[in-house]
């Protein structure tokens, strides 16, 4: 009888090497992030976790608390909606200025230097607005205008103006330019060309992106509450600091529900308008 061949992996050496190399690369990352999973299982931290999680059930349902939560949830939604509306006021003119396809001198070759630099500097403004996270804007505005939704609204409107402006300009530039160029070449004004050619072509895409961003803004307006911008996030932060697990649990459920609802609503709106 033939002895069975021992099963040998032909790639043993290279596998061993990549495992060792992987760990060698991960080691400094672990040190930098103070990665100590065993700290989670020390008796102190387990006790604290179990005590906190134990207070999650039963969740808080007394009517007064629910009323407060309903008010703060609405405030979160309102903050996102007002923020996006103000962002639109800023983003629409900026994107019209930034869009290269609305350039008259660009029709016949290279853009003139003055409009070129105006467009470029608007682009840079949009990049700066967008590259500072809304939470940082909110932290700064809380210092200036005080606690409350004003800081959150300002933060959302500035960051989202940057994002919307950039993407609007990109959408306008990626659209089919035939009718737009024809209008511009035949002497229509840039606003006429925009309203009669670019806007009808891109309307669906523009609304769909705006609604999607509104959904994102609802999520981020909760987070902004953690730095004092009001709404659900601020209540959540307060309850966490007081270790009121039952309230935290209720708010987490409300939040998950709100996100799911916004998700569904935005999908429906985009389908109907798209």
């Amino acid at each position, binding site marked *: 009888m033939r002895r069975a061949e021992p099963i040998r992996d032909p790639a043993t050496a290279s596998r061993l090497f990549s495992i060792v190399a992987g760990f060698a690369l*991960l080691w*400094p*990352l*672990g040190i*930098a*992030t*103070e*990665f*100590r999973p065993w*700290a*989670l299982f020390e008796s102190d*931290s*387990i006790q*604290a*976790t179990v005590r*906190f999680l134990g207070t999650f059930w039963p969740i808080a349902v007394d009517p007064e608390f629910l009323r407060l939560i309903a008010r703060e949830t*609405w*405030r979160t*939604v*309102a*903050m996102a*909606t*007002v923020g996006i*509306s103000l962002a639109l006021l800023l983003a629409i003119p900026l994107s019209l200025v930034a869009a290269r396809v609305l350039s008259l001198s660009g029709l016949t070759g290279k853009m003139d230097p003055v409009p070129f630099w105006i467009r470029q500097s608007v682009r840079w403004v949009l990049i*700066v607005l967008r*590259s*500072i*996270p809304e*939470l*940082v804007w909110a*932290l*700064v505005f809380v*210092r*200036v*205008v*005080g606690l*409350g*939704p*004003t800081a959150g*609204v*300002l933060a959302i409107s500035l960051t989202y103006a940057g994002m919307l402006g950039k993407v609007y300009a990109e959408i306008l530039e990626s659209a089919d330019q035939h009718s737009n160029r024809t209008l511009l070449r035949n002497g229509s004004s840039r606003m006429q060309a925009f309203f009669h050619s670019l806007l009808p072509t891109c309307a669906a895409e523009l609304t769909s992106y705006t609604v999607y961003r509104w959904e994102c803004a609802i*999520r*981020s307006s*909760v*987070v902004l509450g*953690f*730095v004092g911008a009001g709404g659900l996030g601020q209540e*959540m*932060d307060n309850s*966490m600091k007081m*270790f009121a697990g039952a309230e*935290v649990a209720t708010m*987490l459920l409300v*939040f*998950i529900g709100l996100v*799911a609802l916004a998700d569904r609503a935005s999908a*429906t*709106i985009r389908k*109907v*308008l798209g």
Partner: protein
Amino acid sequence: MRTQAWGVLTALLCLVIASFATIDLQWQAFWSAEAVASMGRFLGEFVPPETSPEFIQKVIVGAWETLAMSVLGTLLAALLGMLLAIPGSQNRAEARTWTRTPVQWVLNALRAIPELVWASLLLISAGLGPFAGTLALALHTAGVLGRLYAEALENAPTGPAMALKAQGVGSGRVFFYATLPTILPQVMSYTLYRWENNIRAAAILGVVGAGGLGQLLAFHLSLFQMHKTASVLLGMIGMVACVDALSQQLRKRLT
């Protein structure tokens, strides 16, 4: 269709009007000359940014910590996401799996809670510092990646897996030698994309005390040390810009 569209538009308009009506905004904070002046003064305090070598070094350490948090958090999330995506997906070739629905619910819950909320929850068990931030990134991203991986698994071509299975190969090896290689490009691009997102997220997690540049920022801002805050902000923007440029180059190279 048209009436539906008008209905949706009216509803949106009502939402906007109701929001403006009920929110207690301090409008004078936007328009009054005094508010603009105080804003200008406040922004003026940011210049010049602090440039002493010791502080620059602190910012660099913070940036490295943020970067490490994002890498480790994304790696953990990829592992956890894949572990959840396997029971959370249902291959066309297989019988119905009862695990799919409950696991999808878990993924949805992980995903619905933002990183920052995870971080402030985890501070209780993991303590202040970058470890809590790393875990928070990992949990939220595991929800996102798990769902994407599960979709990739469900849409993967079943041919190679069936061929191996017909030869009597165990399901573990079928996964590693047939299913995983077919979805690997998709998995890699999803993971890289989330990593980019996570660098931004990691930069702000510190605001609740979870380490990185955000912690430096919140600390110096709360002490009104505006010059130092400005340097941290510049460090943050610079880091994000570098990573964006790098990943754009990588993607151009890869595709």
